[in-house]
């Protein structure tokens, strides 16, 4: 994975497959503490403790087409390589939380990447899922909430290319401000 946004895209796919209706993605950058924290939380079907214990093992996967699953192991590896940590918690019937902390200034921390593009890809592919995205950096904050957006758009489909393009611009513009 070239950047963190692609890891997020990958992990959120798990949430979608788990039947989540609400997905929270939060990115918190703290340059004083020198951390970048990514939190992905869903209300999907969750996993039993023995499954949770094995999901970061590259030779474990729930997929039946082949025997390796690298999404979470790679994410974990990247976090640990940049002096961070990785944690996953899940409860059957309640959902799953994945948390990864990175050393913000660590040379091995992948760049954040195109979060606006990733968000719109997720929103466009599963317009029925509610996404709540929050990005903070040293006290500045931006929130993108599909519930609010749907209210404003009053029935205009979120997976319409013209709509997605505007939304992507809007998120990109706001993230630029948070990042600056």
């Amino acid at each position, binding site marked *: 994975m070239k950047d963190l946004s692609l890891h997020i895209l990958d992990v959120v796919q798990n949430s979608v497959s788990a039947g989540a209706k609400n997905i929270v993605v939060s990115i918190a950058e703290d340059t004083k503490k020198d951390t970048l924290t990514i939190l992905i939380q869903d209300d999907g079907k969750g996993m039993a403790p023995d499954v949770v214990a094995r999901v970061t093992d590259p030779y474990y996967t729930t997929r039946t087409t082949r025997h390796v699953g690298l999404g979470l192991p790679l994410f974990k590896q990247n976090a640990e390589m940049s002096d961070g940590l990785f944690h996953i918690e899940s409860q059957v019937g309640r959902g799953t939380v994945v948390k990864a902390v990175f050393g913000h200034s660590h040379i091995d921390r992948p760049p954040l990447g195109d979060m606006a593009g990733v968000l719109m890809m997720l929103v466009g592919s599963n317009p029925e899922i509610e996404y709540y995205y929050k990005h903070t950096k040293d006290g500045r904050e931006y929130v993108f909430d599909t519930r609010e957006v749907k209210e404003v758009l009053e029935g205009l489909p979120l997976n319409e290319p013209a709509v997605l393009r505007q939304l992507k611009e*809007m998120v990109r513009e706001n993230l630029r401000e948070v990042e600056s």
Partner: protein
Amino acid sequence: MTKIKSLADLKKMKSSLQSQVALREKSDNPEGRILVRVGMGTSGIASGAKQVMEFLIDELEKRNVDAIVTQTGDMGYSYAEPTVEVTLPGQEPIVFGDVDQKKADDIIEKYIKNGELLDGIIPQNYETIDKK
């Protein structure tokens, strides 16, 4: 184009967005729409599926092809990522492997517009060892 930054700006844009959608819906018969699915598993993402999907969304719209572009999980063809499955109305789905921007362009121009087949189609009868 004016920049939108807040939900209030988005609200102002709504009528123009609405007219674009309405224009499309007039010619719409859901059964007649082309379905394009991009494989977005770990291996797909790592091989550039995001760029391919963004390219397909933008270009299909620019070239006035009425298609739904969406994503799917891992299709089991990790040796040929990124993979793109195209279903033309009334036809069997076809999966293209090793899709980059150039190939995505060929898929639109040759397969979607003219029904020509391309190199790199993953045979339909392909089955993983597990299934046998």
